[in-house]
């Protein structure tokens, strides 16, 4: 074998130099994750990022519910409560408390900031069109505003972060973490939401309108996403901009009216008479026609708001739950998609029974409500619905419908759970209810009441538009439909002229006329009012509020407002709204000279401790808001 020495040397020299020849010799790609350069290149990436963001939102359920309910008056600690929960209940928490750690909220915020930053970059680089960008960007902003609002109503000082925090240098820059209080935060969030390109539903998302099947169950995804009108409406309401707020709520309600030929309108808190075997009341508490004195004909379909799956079509061609549910996150029960509420609330199976309904909520709220016509004293939304006695102890039931087996459907098709039977106690499926029609009505009513339309608020709260705007003639007779009644309006000035409708956004048309003159099917025709749907009497008003409800006397407005907040407890108790509701109204009242916010709040939560015969904690300026874990 003859080897040329020179050639060998040349070859070896080439090898030596070739090591250093290519510039990317040290490049590696992250294989177990997606490197930032490989993300945000197309709309598919964009939708994936939004889906991931909602994945982060779904981790917030426990914190949102515990902070908003345990701090307030409807939920109390159960025997197995953790120390952190006991301290939250007693308002003696410090920053080391698990629930004072805002990390999960900031995970949502970080991802939202990152997505918006990258969406802007994609738009600039023409990787996404304006049309594709708008609804998606707005979606993300809405989620961020919602997360900040949640922080704002709980914590003293909130770092308002908008930077995508790309590198640790950004973490060390304190200008990325300006601190704000709720007073500064809310106007900021309003301006954030006002700046988004679109408030419409993001139907462009690859997931909108889809039903997916996971863990053997179908899930309809439309209710998965936040609604921008509603979050903006809430923000305005927090900022006491009532007309603006009602405008946003109304915009959402009108969106649902686009398909007017439907027999059942969305989000109208509908009621109608139930004739056994002919028509199905939906989400309504009622008695069979003409049998409303007979408890055995009692029917509770209201609780199906919580038991139905997102994909359940019910008896209608459309998804039944969409009539009521606006924002809901489902947990399939598979590993990684576990409802946190089973551990918190259930007292059998894998439940740890940490939290329970407060004695106040049961004894002073639900169990004092009086039903229509028969005078039975209980609220169908309470017992066997929102709570129940299981194994001798009161349990928050709202979140457990997917956990226990359905025992039976009684003669009236009301479903009952069998608390002794759990098909698989480890399958912790469930749902987190973030927003639904009844809450929307109460919020809209709150705005209308303060905007000078307390009758409208009264109607939505009690028994609906139709009944409260059916003006009578001077002789006491009802006016016929065609003369312009059954829509929200000022009282007619005479017996002949139609009533003058309330201006937008307070005009709600509830007219219904079959024959012979006009066939009318107005969107609000079936609205039965929040209490009406629960088969409860209208609230009894003190004299100074009187039946007219047209009085804009301050005390009257405040009284209606208190009634709306109390009704929210009855309707939406345990759903993570209570602390915010109490605080929002307390702040308003405080501005009107009713005392310090902390004092008003302290009086509100004292009920819980009094009813449980425990010493009430003292809520003051220092513990009204939580310290944030750094």
């Amino acid at each position: 074998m003859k080897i040329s020495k020179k050639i060998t040397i040349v070859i070896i020299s080439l090898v030596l130099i070739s090591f250093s020849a290519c510039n990317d010799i040290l490049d590696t790609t992250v294989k177990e994750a997606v490197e930032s350069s490989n993300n945000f290149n197309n709309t598919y990436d964009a939708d994936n990022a939004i889906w991931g963001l909602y994945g982060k939102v779904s981790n917030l359920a426990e914190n949102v519910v515990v902070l908003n309910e345990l701090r307030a008056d409807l939920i109390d600690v159960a025997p197995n409560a953790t120390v952190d929960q006991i301290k939250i209940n007693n308002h003696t928490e410090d920053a080391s408390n698990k629930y004072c750690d805002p990390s999960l909220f900031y995970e949502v915020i970080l991802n939202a900031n990152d997505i918006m930053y990258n969406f802007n970059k994609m738009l600039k680089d023409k990787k996404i069109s304006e049309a594709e960008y708008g609804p998606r960007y707005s979606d993300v902003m809405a989620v961020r505003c919602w997360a900040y609002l949640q922080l704002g109503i709980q914590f003293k000082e909130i770092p308002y972060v908008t930077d995508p925090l790309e590198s640790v240098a950004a973490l060390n820059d304190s200008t990325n973490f300006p601190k704000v209080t709720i007073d500064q935060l809310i106007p900021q969030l309003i301006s954030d939401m006002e700046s988004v390109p679109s408030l419409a539903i993001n139907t462009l998302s690859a997931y909108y309108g889809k039903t997916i099947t996971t863990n053997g169950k179908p899930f309809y995804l439309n209710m998965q996403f936040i609604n921008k009108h509603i979050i903006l409406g809430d923000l305005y309401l927090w900022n006491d901009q009532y007309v603006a707020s009602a405008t946003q709520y109304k915009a959402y309600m009108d969106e649902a009216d686009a398909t007017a030929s439907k027999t059942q309108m969305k989000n109208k808190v509908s009621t109608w008479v139930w004739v056994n075997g002919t028509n199905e009341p939906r989400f309504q508490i009622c008695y069979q026609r003409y049998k409303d004195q007979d408890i055995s004909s009692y029917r509770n379909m209201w609780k199906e708001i919580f038991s139905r799956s997102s994909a359940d079509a019910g008896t209608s061609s459309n998804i039944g739950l969409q009539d009521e549910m606006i924002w809901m996150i489902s947990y399939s029960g598979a590993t990684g998609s576990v409802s946190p509420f089973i551990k918190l609330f259930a007292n059998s199976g894998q439940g740890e029974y940490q939290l329970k309904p407060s004695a106040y909520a049961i004894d002073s709220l639900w169990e004092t409500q009086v039903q229509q016509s028969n005078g039975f004293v209980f609220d169908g939304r309470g017992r066997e619905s929102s709570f129940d006695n299981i194994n001798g102890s009161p349990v928050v039931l709202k979140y457990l419908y997917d956990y226990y087996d359905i025992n039976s459907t009684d003669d009236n098709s009301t479903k009952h759970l069998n608390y002794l039977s759990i098909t698989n106690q480890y399958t912790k499926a469930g749902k987190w209810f973030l927003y639904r029609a009844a809450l929307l009505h109460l919020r809209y009513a709150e705005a209308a009441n303060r905007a000078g339309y307390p009758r409208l608020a009264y109607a939505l709260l009690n028994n609906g538009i139709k009944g409260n705007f059916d003006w009578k003639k001077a002789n006491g007779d009802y006016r016929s439909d065609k003369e312009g009644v059954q829509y929200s309006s000022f009282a007619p000035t005479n017996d002949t002229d139609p009533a003058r409708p309330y201006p937008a956004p307070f005009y709600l048309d509830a007219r219904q006329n079959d024959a012979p003159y006009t066939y009318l099917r107005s969107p609000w025709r079936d609205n039965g009012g929040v209490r009406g749907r629960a088969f409860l009497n209208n609230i009894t008003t003190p004299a100074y509020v009187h039946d007219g409800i047209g009085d804009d006397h301050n005390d009257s407005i405040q009284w209606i407002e208190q009634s709306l907040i109390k009704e929210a407890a009855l309707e939406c108790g345990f759903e993570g709204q209570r602390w915010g509701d109490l605080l929002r109204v307390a702040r308003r009242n405080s501005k009107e000279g009713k005392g310090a916010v902390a004092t008003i709040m302290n009086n509100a939560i004292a009920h819980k401790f009094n009813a449980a015969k425990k010493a009430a904690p003292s809520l003051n300026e220092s513990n009204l808001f939580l310290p944030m874990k750094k």
Partner: protein
Amino acid sequence: MKQLKYILLIVLFITGFTNNIIAQKGVTATEISGTVYESSTKKPLAGAKVSIPGVTSAITGEDGKFKLLKSIKGAYLVIDAPGFASKTITAINNTKEVAVFLYEESFKGNNEEAAMPFGTINSLSSTAAMAAHQNKEDYKLCAPTIETVLQGNFSGLNTVSRTGAPGAGANMFIHGFSSLNATCQPLIIVDGVQYENQTTYSLIGGNNISALSDIDVKDIDNISVLKNGASIYGSKAANGVIIINTIQAKDPSTRINFFAYTGVNLEPTNKYKMMDASDYKSYLTDMLSSGGLTSSQIQSLSFINTTKPVVENWGISGNKDYYRYNQSTNWQDEVFNNSLNQNYHLNVTGGNDAALYAISFGYLGQGGLVDKTNFSKYTTRVNAKIKMTEWFKLNTNMSFIYSDRNLAYEGLDKNFSPVYAALVKAPFTAPNIYNVAGEKTPNLESVDPLGVSNPTAIINNSTAKNQRSRFTGNLNALLNINKFLDASVLIGITSDKTSEKIFLPMAGVSHAALPNATVTNESQQLRNSFSQINADAHLTYARTFNYAHKINANLGTHFQSSSSELDWGKAYNSSSDEMKTLGDGDASLAQTGGSLGDWKSLSTYLNADYSYLNRYFLSVNAALDGSSRFGKDAAGFKMLNGKFGLFPSIDAGWLISSEGFMKDQHFFDVLKLRSGFSITGNDDIGNYSAKNYYTSEGLLGIYGLVRGNVSNSQLQWETNKKGFIGIDISLLKERLNISTDLYLSRTENLYNQKTVATSTGIGYASYNDGTLENKGIDLTVNARIIDKPNFKWDITTNISTYKNKLLAMSNDETFTTISGGTVRTKVGSPIAQFYGYKADGVYSTAAEATSANLKMQNADGSLVAFGAGDVKFVDQSINGVKDGIINEKDMVVIGDPNPDFIGSINNKFQWRQFSLTTLFTYSLGNDVYNAERASLESMSNLDNQTVYAVNRWKTDGQITNTPKATYGDPMGNSRFSSRWIEDGSYIRLKSLTLGYDLKVKSEVFKSVQFYVTGNNLITFTKYLGYDPEFSTGSSPLSYGIDSGVTPQSRSILFGVKIGL
């Protein structure tokens, strides 16, 4: 990379230029004469070759005298004689007459050949702080893993066996701990190629296995530990370097060595003294009653009720389980057993003028102390050197190793660890079911009513198997360019695969529930593959000018590309224990996971050794390293789209004894000063910490992407700066050799995963933050105490001490919880100190407790007073005030796992053909947190406890140091306190070997050696656990925490080596 090209050109230019102008001669006609003696007899030695290599040589006559006619100023005289250790001395200027004493071959003197990154070097010329070892007799240790060889033979290297599990290997720490969160394990170079030795992720609880353990001891030729001066390895060398060279043929003659040993591992004698059946029953009754059960409820329990069963016509009256729960079992005896070891190894070396080869095959079968555990491995190796032409050589090293470990879970796991289950298991239960007639049945008991697995069932029915294979192949082309210049190009491939197979049956084994199911049985598998390509090319320039200036320089570049893949799967609830595959489990419970890693580095390095007159030595090393792990904004030089760090070192040596002014003294044979300063790096900072990435986030089974991290684009290597001073002394004709090194090292830019503000939305971020200091002394003394022709006694002792201190870190204090204990790392203090409550006995009376007036704060803030029978925790005064409340403010440093001294004492006696060697290893002054004992004496649950619990406080006035037993331990008497900190000092007779060299006069056999070896025979310690020597994790934070490890076995083995 332009810089590199320029450097290359400049070097080539200078070498060409100097070739032409320097051509002087330094050879003088000075005569050197002298006498060579045999040391043990003091008689002159004939036939010894004395030479100045390449210049002149002579053979000694009958009178042992020689005369060299030429000499060179400062040259080395090399004296070789068959059967004697080669010796190098310096011919001091004008010395006319020298006396040389030669020792037999196995003598360890002060001038051995030591392996260095670029070939071997005589330790006289070395400037580094290093320790070298020739593998001559190591086979007699009968060591299953080569880490055992590293133990006791190298000063400054703290080698601690991980556990006594078969084939567990050891963790190694050079000069203390140079990192907190990155690896502290030294870089390992085998045959010139980096040998990745990270422990691989294991599903088998408590087990850590690394690749090095699979190399066979008898495949090793020599080992060097470079404690300093390793800058040539740049960003990988901060923890020091261990250079291992495998067997090579020294000459073409065929040599065959056959090794075999067999022996027995003995059951441990220092078992925990657990309560027996009757003591335990009394304890159990107390516990159940303090747990709220009434005495009638307790009496009705099947394992308490003492009514014997009677078979009546209508059925059974009495307690039908009486005989099941009234046995007396020493469960530790059930799980530990004696086991057998055997090893066979064959190696062949030889070749011809064109090619030399070394081939080896080996099999090892090592039994474990825990019944049915074992370790077997099959090793093959082919090393060859092929001379293609006069100027072109090819060297190859190839090895394939397959190992198979049947393991047991370790740690405080009463479901799966047979040892721990045996400890806590009720002694009144038995491995087999006893029927109502009191007869033992062949059926194994299932999980007992107290929820503890049946240890015998774990051993017999479960599988925990780890199988590994590693192929390494290197091809090295060596090219002689001209007289002074050589080139080397090397390609090395490593492919390493691990697989694990685990099956934990339903029969007799308790399982923790999953979040979404109860578990009946589980099956787990793991695959881990790692591959690495190393490519290295360098030029070597070696030249001596005027026989005085010696230069040896290497300039090269090294590229490394590595990737790893881990995949694991877990399946649960197959319908039968006979159905063991992953596919047999419940599909809805299946879990899978894994990770992918990918990293690359490029190093350009320079090594230049210069010596003048073999008296003054200077060594300069530098590496310019880039890595895919470094951030794009890291400090360093910007090259190739990345950042490169420069890691230089300089070492100098002065052989004072060769100075002219030393020639008339006869006290020092060798006196040498060494000193150096080096900067090295640690690149174990995570593969992707410097990059932004997204991970998946699931919602309803659909996965979206979310931010995975906040990257640190400035993330860089840890920088280790180290200086040392060393002295080497040889006295009394080399019979006493002393070598000591004093060092001070600082690791800056410590890699740290720091908790960041909650408002960032990300839990942790990677930073370079903090400085850690290590300083210490290594001392090695070896002495030939007795040197008679037929009797020789050598002692070699190593002693090392180090102190570490965290000098800076942005978080002043960090606490880490490990096995229920807290370790604190605080600026200004040693790292990883034990931090807990101080306990000071037990309140004997209620009055004593009342007068102490101490309270405990419950988690909800309420205060409870300590009472009689509770532990007296010390209420520390804070700002001069004792608040009377025992809470975390009363936690103090209660122990330090760092030893005061570590080292070894090696004795070797030789009498005629017999030899006796003993190796003692020791660690003194280190504290151990005995988490296993903390759990076995917690007296908080129904588990069996040590006999300590018999003495528990029961009545007012009882004087005892054992607190009362209360279910759930509401007063926290078993909290992490000084009760669980023990003195972990030990001295262990690591090995004792008696050898006999058969005198053979056979055509077939060249040599035959018989030996008997005892390992770990005696351990002197006050430690109460199984074994004071353990190292469950390689992190300094877990150092000295005994979370339940299998003890190392004592073994006695008989072996033979036959040379053909």
